[in-house]
């Protein structure tokens, strides 16, 4: 989401904040660039100066030394209220004006900027829709809304005058996890539409990884420990502090960043449950596939093993290349050819491939948009060693544990 021209929206240079009476600076010599259109998450333990840093961008806190340029201009040169009107601001406690209706709350900055009334009300209606609130919410008072709805109003208010930059201070810490996840998703969807430069402060590394195009990890005293893309942070933490902050599940978190369509899936061949192991192997070898998907083509789907009178021996029907019937069956098993060969050699010939399947070991079916972390979970739960990619019919593909491991390299 970085702007193509790589323009710098916020440029922080050697920024220091020493509070009077504090033994050491809250922020010390911080230098950081935020590209236009980028979401940057400032994350770190409490006392790392992340909120102080954020508030110095719109001068709610004045720096002790150092400079901040906003869109190429030194922000200390502007009158402070003008600077703030050009920067959206969202805080954890929301801070809606309780004596103003939702519409009046959203219209605050446009009114300060002297927009005509008609333009303000049109903009308010547009924003209510953008953040997913009903149009009649505008007439209500903030206290009549739920916490999640209030937070949406807070975002709408921050975006009202279409500021190029949005600052968010722990915006979702006060809402419950379900609402938080939804608000985060909504913010990402919103950002895809509006393409703002967003600086978001959070203490939650998962939120930082989820929302940030880049993540700045701050250590105690506002020292920048590492500033990188989430994937790079997780792949190569700069030091022990960053590694500890990221936690022990770095690989799992990286898997959470990738989707199914970003990894190499390998082909599988589909056979009917009534085919024999030898037939299945022949079909797989014919296609060079290492995996066999066992399909139950029975209409009832409930007695796959004692249904002998169908055309299961005619495995051409299930080779996934030329038959209308292909894909009509439910996948009931997923078997590696290596396993089939092992059983063949062990003399377990005869009987159908369906007979050899363990019941309740249905292969997990995932689709292209799934995060790999969820794929891994599904694979581990199923015990099949791989997952079927469901929306690539009729040619079947599987994602194996090996492929997941390869994605992390």
């Amino acid at each position, binding site marked *: 989401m970085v702007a193509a021209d790589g323009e710098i929206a916020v440029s922080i240079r050697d920024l220091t904040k020493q509070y009077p009476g504090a033994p050491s600076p809250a922020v010390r010599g911080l230098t950081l660039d935020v590209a236009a259109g980028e979401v940057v998450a400032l994350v770190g333990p409490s006392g790392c100066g992340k909120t102080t840093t954020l508030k110095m961008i719109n001068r709610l806190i004045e720096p002790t030394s150092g400079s901040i340029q906003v869109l190429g201009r030194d922000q200390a040169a502007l009158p402070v209220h*003008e600077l703030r009107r050009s920067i959206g*601001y969202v805080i954890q406690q929301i*801070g809606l004006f*309780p*004596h103003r209706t939702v519409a009046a709350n959203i219209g605050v900055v446009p009114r*300060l900027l002297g927009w005509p009334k008609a333009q303000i009300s049109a903009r308010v209606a547009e924003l209510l829709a953008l953040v997913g609130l009903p149009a009649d919410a505008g007439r209500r*008072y903030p*206290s009549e*809304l739920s916490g999640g709805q209030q937070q949406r109003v807070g975002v709408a208010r921050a975006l009202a005058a279409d500021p190029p930059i949005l600052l968010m201070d722990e915006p979702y810490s006060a809402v419950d996890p379900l609402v938080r996840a939804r608000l985060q998703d909504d913010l990402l969807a919103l950002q895809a539409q509006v393409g703002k430069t967003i600086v978001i402060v959070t203490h939650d590394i998962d939120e930082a990884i989820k929302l940030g195009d880049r993540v700045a990890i701050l250590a105690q005293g506002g020292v920048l420990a590492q500033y990188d893309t989430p994937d790079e942070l997780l792949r190569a933490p700069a030091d022990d502090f960053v590694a500890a902050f990221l936690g022990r599940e770095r690989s799992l978190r990286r898997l959470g960043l990738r989707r199914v369509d970003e990894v190499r899936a390998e082909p599988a061949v589909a056979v009917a449950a009534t085919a024999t192991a030898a037939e299945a192997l022949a079909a797989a070898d014919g296609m060079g596939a290492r995996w066999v998907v066992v399909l139950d083509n029975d209409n009832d789907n409930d007695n796959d093993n004692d249904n002998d009178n169908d055309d299961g021996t005619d495995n051409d029907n299930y080779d996934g290349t030329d038959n209308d019937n292909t894909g009509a069956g439910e996948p009931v098993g997923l078997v590696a050819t290596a396993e089939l060969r092992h059983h063949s050699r062990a003399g377990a010939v005869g009987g159908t491939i369906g007979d050899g399947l363990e019941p309740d070991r249905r292969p997990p079916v995932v689709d292209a948009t799934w995060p790999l972390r969820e794929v891994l979970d599904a694979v581990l739960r199923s015990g099949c060693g791989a997952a079927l990619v469901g929306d690539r019919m009729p040619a079947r593909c599987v994602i194996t544990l090996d492929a997941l491991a390869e994605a992390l390299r």
Partner: protein
Amino acid sequence: MTVPLAATGAVVAQASRRDTLVSWGWVSEHLDDVWSRTVEHVQLTLVALALGFAVSSALAALAVRHRRTFAPITWIGSILYTIPSVALFGMLIPVTGLGFWTAEIALVSYTILIFVRNIVAGIDGVPAPVVEAADAMGYTRWQRLRAVELPLALPTIVAGLRIAAVTVIGLVTVAAVVGNGGYGAFILDGLDRDFPTPIVLGAALSVLLAATVDAGLALAERALTPWARRRGGER
């Protein structure tokens, strides 16, 4: 000291009036006085509240802006508030003589503590995130005060106004000792002549006025803070 009321009444009539606490006949003969004393009482009260509010607003603004001044301002206000009212009027007479402004100086001095405390408490009571949001939206300091802090402080300020109004309405009767007492004139007259009817009348009217003003302010507050009554919705 004040206008002699019914001083020409017959001795016999006077004696009969003393038998009951309230002589309705006397009251009906003095409805004109009731009206003029009401006007006087309301005038004294309104001027005292307006002046007191103006002076207190300036002091409260100073206290909010420079927090160190808050304690000294409330000390002075407390001292003024605790001087017995009759004593204060008595101390003022040699300086400012008998008259309207002598009464007002004393009345105003009693409102200062109430107003300053409530204005400051009201502004302090505005939630910090709301103030932070107002700053971050780009309100200037004055705009923030006018558009955010004062409206939200209004319930507390009106609460102070109600206390001050009731206090002043009661004290105005005492101001009769400096010749400007509204209903207090009835009370002094009754005391002078050992005649209970004007005493009861003055006290009753004073209480009635206080109760009316208090209720009126409570209604005004409700009308001015529609947001405070709307609660709930989905949470």
